[in-house]
């Protein structure tokens, strides 16, 4: 226990790690707030700069960006009615009417405090639940890992946008891209076409930067002329009376956020939506009707989406399963540092787990500090014209991609993925399932084939094992239930 506390506090006592977490949170708030820039994009670009760093330093910076980015999305939702992130869409429903009423400062202040409470509850749940789940998952066999990866891939249903077929296509394309190179079990070449460059596989960080960064830059060129509106920002710090009044609602919606965030395929966006719906049902007498600037609506959405971050870390760290697009990219970041997130993480590298928890807590505190200060600087930075911002993103993407292997070929990969990503996005395909496929593809491949080899390629026995073992049975049932639920949701 004392050792866990020692690891937990590492980021707090080391000045450099403390600085990196604070810097990450600060940067995350601004990246999340600028419409067109996403946390996923920021973390993808960041991986390439930090891959050669010490793992603790890299994790400190990325945890900060993740936490800050989720919070930052709400700022522009309130000020400009443009959600900086999908999880802030619901925030805009009541946040923007509040700003129009001249209460932008108060809305930002209250949403910051409630985001902090939500984030804290999410982290406490992560601390309690992760060791229990991790111990349980030590009993997993290769077939269970296969089922877990399939469960993760089912996230595609939530990330597909308007068409499930397009989502499945992108996920399968991602799996195929993940298969390029030498087979890890037999060293046989797959999709290399005799090209030596391809035997090492697709540089997936370059692909991520292309799909999330360059593609988004091209999409944003269609919205170059959108001008931000200036807001009057005063009285940021909320009164204790106001915080106390909304605390019970905040605690309830934090619970919703954590649970929803921990489920595969659901993230901050769905958490905030469900929390908003819950707040609407239980609030008998809102300050003003919901949708017209009700503080209850703003608080519910903001607490839930920040609580969902801690929730999303639970399956990510204990099962190696991404909860959403950002955690999928975060798993990629852990891989690149030689860390295998999953059941063994807590037994083999407990220091990294507790260090991450400590960093998330610190980043959450930084949100409170940065959120309640520097608002004037903030309003200036988010008004940075896209005509300047977009070329800078391209240069940063080039620098980040080149930094991975000092290879210009990686830059070509990045650009190619960016162009493909642009057309996919414009035709209604979502690029997040591709990344999900690239990350989970190798895990599906290896665990499936190990499971098949363990039953000497006997197809009957292979399927029987899924039903005869209690863990496999639960996971198989979960796969089918999620599938069924997704088809039902699509029909309605």
């Amino acid at each position, binding site marked *: 226990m004392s050792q866990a506390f020692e690891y937990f506090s590492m980021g707090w006592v080391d000045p450099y790690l403390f600085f990196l977490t604070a810097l990450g949170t600060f940067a995350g708030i601004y990246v999340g707030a600028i419409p067109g820039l996403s946390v996923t994009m920021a973390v993808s670009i960041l991986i390439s*700069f930090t891959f050669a760093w010490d793992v603790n330093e890299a994790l400190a910076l990325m945890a900060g960006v993740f936490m800050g980015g989720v919070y930052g999305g709400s700022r522009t939702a309130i000020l400009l009615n443009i959600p900086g992130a999908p999880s802030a869409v619901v925030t805009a429903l009541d946040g923007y009417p509040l700003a129009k009423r001249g209460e932008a400062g108060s809305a930002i202040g209250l949403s910051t405090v409630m985001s902090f409470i939500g984030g804290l509850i999410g982290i406490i749940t992560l601390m309690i639940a992760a060791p229990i789940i991790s111990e349980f998952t030590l009993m997993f066999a290769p077939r269970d890992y296969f089922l877990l990866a399939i469960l993760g891939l089912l996230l595609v249903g939530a990330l597909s946008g308007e*068409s499930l*077929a*397009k989502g*499945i*296509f992108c*996920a*399968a*394309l991602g*799996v*195929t891209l993940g*298969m390029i190179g030498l*087979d890890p*079990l*037999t060293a*046989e070449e*797959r*999709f290399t*076409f005799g090209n030596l460059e391809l035997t090492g596989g697709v540089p997936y960080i370059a692909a991520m930067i292309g799909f999330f960064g*360059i593609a988004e830059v*091209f999409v944003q*060129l*269609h919205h*170059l002329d959108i001008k931000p509106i200036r807001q009057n920002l005063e009285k940021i710090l909320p009164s204790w009376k106001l915080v106390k009044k909304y605390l019970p609602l905040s605690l309830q919606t934090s619970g919703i956020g954590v649970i929803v965030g921990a489920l595969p395929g659901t993230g901050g966006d769905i958490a905030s939506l469900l929390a908003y719906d819950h707040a609407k049902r239980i609030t008998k007498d809102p300050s003003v009707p919901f949708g017209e600037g009700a503080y209850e609506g703003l608080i519910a959405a903001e607490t839930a989406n920040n609580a969902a971050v801690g929730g999303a870390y639970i399956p990510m760290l204990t099962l190696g399963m991404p909860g959403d697009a950002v955690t999928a990219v975060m798993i990629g970041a852990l891989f690149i540092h030689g860390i295998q997130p999953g059941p063994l993480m807590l037994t083999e590298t407990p220091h990294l787990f507790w260090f991450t928890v400590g960093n998330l807590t610190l980043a959450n505190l930084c949100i409170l500090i940065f959120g309640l200060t520097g608002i004037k600087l903030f309003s200036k930075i988010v008004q940075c*014209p*896209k*005509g*300047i911002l*977009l*070329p*800078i993103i*391209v*240069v*940063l993407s*080039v*620098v980040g991609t*080149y*930094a991975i292997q*000092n290879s*210009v070929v990686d*830059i*070509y990969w990045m*650009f190619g993925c960016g*162009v493909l990503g642009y*057309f996919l996005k*414009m*035709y*209604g395909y979502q690029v997040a399932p591709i990344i999900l*496929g690239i990350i989970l*593809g190798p895990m*599906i*491949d290896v665990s*499936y*084939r*190990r499971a*098949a*080899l363990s039953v000497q*390629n006997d*197809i009957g026995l*292979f399927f029987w094992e899924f039903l005869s073992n209690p863990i496999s049975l639960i996971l198989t049932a979960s796969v089918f239930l999620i599938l069924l639920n997704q088809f039902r949701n699509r029909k309605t």
Partner: protein
Amino acid sequence: MTSQPKSTKRTQIPGELVFACLLLSLSLLIAFYALSISGFSSMSSPGSIPMLAALFMLVSSLITVIKTTGTTTKNSTFITRLTPPILLFFASISLTYILVIDQLGFLISSGLFLFASILALYRQGPSIAMLVSINTLAIIYIIFRLIFKVILPEANLWE
């Protein structure tokens, strides 16, 4: 007298069907290569998951083609909707930038790219574009090269 049913069909973005067909062709090609890895030799063969992925790609792209075929086209062209002049220009200079970065090095190529793209996108005149480009480049160089020690592409044109 029969009332005309209200059309609920979604409209097609210019070039959507061609794009869907291209993805279907890509799926066919991938399926062919996946099959050639190890065929159906055994359940645990290296080609099993690639074949399964290719099958999913084939089926889903076929569904998309069928669904797209039944929609009507929007009243705009591929050029105006998907590749407006500003995007074509920006994509072209981005491509030129990444192609010459190895020859000219990071500083010169990035400087030229930033200047040209800010001039075209921000439209505030060459002096502003020059000022912003130089400042941006200096900040990027100090942060990444000097502080983070990130290696940047070097010029090999004169080597």
